[in-house]
C-alpha cells in the first residue's frame, strides 16, 4: 500500500448494484494505470506498438470513464470528466517526452500543469458529489502523479525491478481511488 494511502472503507453488506459500482470504478482506474505504464515503456523505447498503445490509452480509457459516469451524471458531466482525463493523459505524455529528451524547462512546465490539472479535477469531482472531498481527491491525484513520475524515471534509468515495485504501488492506489469513486456513487443512492 502506498505511503499515506488510507484504505477506503466499504459498506459491510453490499448489494449487487453497489458491488458492480465498486468493481467498475476499480477496473477503470486499474485500466488507466496499466495503459499509462504501457505507454511510458513504449514511448521511452520507441516500441513499434506505440501508436496502438497511445490510442488505447488516449481513446479507450477516457471513453470507459465516460460510459461509467454517464449512467449516474448524464452526458454533460461525463463528457466534462472525459475531457479532464484526456487532458491529464496529454500532459503526462508531454512530461514523458520532456523527461526522455532531457528538456528541463519542459519537465517543469508539464509537471506544474499536471498538478494544476489534478487540482482542478479534484475540485470538479467535489462539486458533483458531497461525499467526494476536494482535498481527498487532490491527495489521491498527487500520489498518482508522484508515483507516475517515479515510473518514468525508473524506466528511463533502466531500473526495471524498481519500476515494477512502483507500479504495484500504483495498482494498490487505484484500488483506493476506485473505491472512493464508487463510495461516492453509492452514497448518493446510485441514481
Amino acid at each position, binding site marked *: 500500500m502506498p505511503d499515506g494511502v488510507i484504505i477506503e472503507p466499504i459498506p459491510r453488506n453490499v448489494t449487487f448494484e453497489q458491488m458492480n459500482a465498486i468493481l467498475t470504478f*476499480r477496473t477503470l482506474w486499474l485500466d488507466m494505470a496499466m495503459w499509462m505504464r504501457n505507454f511510458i515503456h513504449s514511448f521511452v523505447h520507441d516500441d513499434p506498438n506505440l501508436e496502438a498503445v497511445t*490510442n488505447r490509452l488516449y481513446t479507450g480509457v477516457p471513453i470507459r470513464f465516460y460510459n461509467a459516469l454517464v449512467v449516474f451524471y448524464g452526458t454533460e458531466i461525463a463528457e466534462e470528466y472525459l475531457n479532464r482525463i484526456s487532458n491529464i493523459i496529454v500532459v503526462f505524455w508531454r512530461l514523458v517526452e520532456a523527461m526522455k529528451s532531457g528538456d528541463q524547462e519542459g519537465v517543469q512546465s508539464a509537471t506544474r500543469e499536471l498538478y494544476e490539472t489534478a487540482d482542478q479535477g479534484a475540485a470538479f469531482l467535489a462539486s458533483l458529489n458531497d461525499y467526494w472531498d476536494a482535498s481527498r481527491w487532490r491527495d489521491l491525484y498527487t500520489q498518482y502523479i508522484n508515483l507516475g513520475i517515479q515510473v518514468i524515471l525508473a524506466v528511463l534509468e533502466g531500473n526495471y525491478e524498481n519500476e515494477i515495485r512502483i507500479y504495484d504501488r500504483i495498482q494498490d492506489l487505484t484500488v483506493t481511488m476506485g473505491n472512493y469513486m464508487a463510495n461516492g456513487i453509492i452514497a448518493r443512492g446510485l441514481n
Partner: protein
Amino acid sequence: MPNGASPEPVTRDMTFEQMNALIAFRTIWIELAMWMREFVYSLVDNDPNQVAVTNRLYIGVPLKFYNAITVFYGPEIAEEFLGRISRFILRVWRLVDAIKNNRPDLVGDIAMSLQEGAIQNAAFMESVNPNWDRSTWNNFYIQYLRMLNEMILFIIGGEYENEIRVFDRLQNLSTLMGGNMARGIIQSRSRRETELTEPIESDQ
C-alpha cells in the same frame, strides 16, 4: 464479452468478505493476463526489462494465487495450484520461444501439452471444489489458450491494434474466471454454514 463465455451471475447481496474474495480472484486473474502480455512482448522484442517482467510473472503471480487459495484450502492445495500455474507459465514461455524461432515441430508439442495441462487443471479444480465445474473450467482454459495464442501471433506479426483487442477480451475472460472461482468458494461456504445451522433431527 469473449465469444462463448457466459456472464457469471453474482449472488444478489454479498457480505464484505464475499466481495473481497470476488475482487481478490478477479484481480489475480487480470494480473496473470497483464503480466503474461508484458512477458510475451519482452520476450519477442528482447526488451531490457525481460528479467524483471519474468520474475514478476513467474514468481509474483503464482504467489498471489497461493496466498489467496491458502486462506480457504490450506497450504497443500494452494501449493498444488501454484505448481500448476507455474507450469502453465513455463509452457507459454516455451511456446513463445518456439513460435518466435519458427520451430513448428516444437509448437505442436507445446500446444498439445498446454491443452492437456488445461484439462488436468480443470479436473483438479473440480476435485477441490465441486462448484468449480470441470467443463466450465475446461472451456475457460481452452478460450484462454486460444486468445493467448492469438495475442502471441499478433505481437509477432506486428498487428498491435488487433493484439490490444484480443487482450481486452482476455481481460474480460479473466474477470469471468475470477468471478467463477470466488462464487464457487462463496457457494461452498454458504452451504457449509447452512448445514451447520440446520437443526439435527431427533428420534421421536
